[in-house]
């Protein structure tokens, strides 16, 4: 039995502000069809007052994702950009009367969409998409993970083969990320750990977590063993232009 609160159920069955906002000047998209959760948040922000005049959403996902987006649009409408930037997943969760424990990530998803939309409005796109994608370079720091993998491949891959597959998988997701003004590059492979560097709209922790989750799953599927994708800690490019 799904144990959603009355508030969450109300937002799911009667979603507020659902649909396309033609006049949007800030759009944030997170998640994927493949991952089972995808959200597009559209905001119309008054350029002079920097107040969110209108918010609408589209969502593919369970009751949790749809309810979280609905609640989010209600929360941010009338907020200033600065107020909205401080909105936490916890506040979205609270507006839903508290999602069930294992469904809290839906609030993170909605908050990530908000942050992405606001980042677009504020022009936080530090790195322009590179014109010619080359396969990400690979450094092998450690031999293949020794402990018994959960998913067994018939023939174990050599570290070199694995590195090639990892680079291919990462390249395959780059066009999607670039479309959203971001990028991902491979830093290193260490056993079950794949270190990557996220830039642009992909960086910033909430978004990064979602992007990395999808990448992690693709890599694990491609390699047939569990993989942990770890983002390299590089700070978001400062908006104030500090050097």
């Amino acid at each position, binding site marked *: 039995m*799904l144990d959603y609160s009355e508030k969450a159920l109300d937002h799911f*069955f009667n979603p507020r502000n*659902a649909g396309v906002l033609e006049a949007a000047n800030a759009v944030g998209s997170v998640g994927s069809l493949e991952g*089972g959760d995808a*959200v597009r948040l559209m905001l119309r922000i008054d350029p002079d007052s920097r107040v969110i005049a209108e918010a609408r959403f589209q*969502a*593919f996902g*369970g009751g949790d*994702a749809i309810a979280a987006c609905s609640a989010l649009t209600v929360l941010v409408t009338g907020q200033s950009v600065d107020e909205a930037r401080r909105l936490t997943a916890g506040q979205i969760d609270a507006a839903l009367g508290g999602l069930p424990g*294992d469904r809290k990530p839906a609030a993170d998803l909605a908050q990530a969409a908000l942050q992405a939309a606001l980042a677009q409005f504020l022009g936080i796109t530090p790195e322009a998409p590179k014109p010619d994608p080359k396969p990400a370079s690979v450094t092998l720091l450690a031999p293949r993970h020794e402990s018994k993998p959960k998913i067994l491949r018939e023939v174990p891959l050599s570290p070199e083969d694995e590195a090639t597959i990892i680079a291919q998988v990462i390249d395959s997701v780059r066009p999607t990320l670039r479309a959203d003004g971001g990028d991902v590059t491979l830093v290193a492979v260490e056993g079950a750990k794949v270190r990557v560097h996220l830039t642009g709209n992909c960086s910033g922790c909430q978004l990064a977590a979602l992007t990395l989750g999808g990448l992690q799953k693709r890599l694990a599927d491609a390699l047939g063993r569990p993989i942990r994708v770890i983002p390299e800690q590089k700070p978001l490019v400062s908006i104030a232009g500090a050097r």
Partner: protein
Amino acid sequence: MQPVYLDNNATTRLAPDALQAMLPFLTQDFGNPSSMHAMGRAPARALIGARRAVQALIGAADDAEIVFTSGGTEANLTAIRSALAADPSRREIVTSAVEHPAVLALCDHLERAEGVTVHRIPVDTEGRLELDAFRAALSDRVALVTLMWANNETGTVFPVEGLAELAHGVGALFHTDAVQAAGKLPIAVKGTDIDMLSVSAHKLHGPKGVGALYLRKGVPFQPLLRGGKQERGRRAGTENIAGIVGFGRAAELAPAVDLAHIARLRDRLEAGIIAAVPKVRVLGDLRDRLANTSCLAFDFAEGEAILMRLDRAGIAVSTGAACSSGAIEPSHVMRAMKVPFTAAHGAIRFSLSRDTTVPEIDRVIEALPPVIAQLRALSPFGAEEVR
């Protein structure tokens, strides 16, 4: 309005007849069948009757081949553990990628903690076992082949009698999880190569908490539960008499079920939905699946959201997905069948029973299309594709 219950692969309504048969053993006939005094007589006789009914349900040669358990999970676990103990030189298990967690989780554990090699045979996009991979996995190192008779999510039927012959070809034991198959297709284990078979009462209108393991005469066996001499020393613990009696009565009622009628209702449901909803796929092996099961995958709609809206409309179904660590993931069966990612999150299982009626099916055909249309309209994907 009465809810439309189309989740009979999860559990079924207890047959009123089964309840009536059970009640005396929860009231005046409370005795222990092992007691030597008169109070033990009625439960002991009832136990014999129920055992014969379950024997008949699966077409076993002898009622002594039936061991009552606490359900399908215990029967599966007993069979697998027993087979591994029978020949310590054989340390491999062959199973499939689409088994019930009752089998797969135990296999994972055996592999991780006890060094058993597990071959999980893949299935094709219709859920049929990859026979070449199955043959390749068989060897004289295999202690047990365990394969489900029918899949709980798609209803796809495995040709277990033939698979059992192949298993015996390499000297392995053969077990089948027939929890979904019993009562939904004809089963006659006598004369087959099936060594062990699991059944559960609550999937065929019996009570929860009771099941049985069929153990062919002569098959080596080690009990899971040791203790008293109940079930000929094969399953210790005072018998769940009321549950066993309810199981027996439910087993007696099973042959009268008109499976062809249930299949017609299922086909009416599928035809009605397919006619009204674009971009829907029927999952499973359409040539050989359970009469009561329909697994439909809707592109660009998410299963839990569909389920919740149908639930609000008084229709109970289940999704081909499970929530794992915050994300709703397609089930292992959907993944094994390589359901395209546009639909993998939108799988809904409708499972009918003998209680299902035409008006109920028509209510679903009416209620479902707007639900899918609303969710697709909410979604950022596929606006063109589904029109």
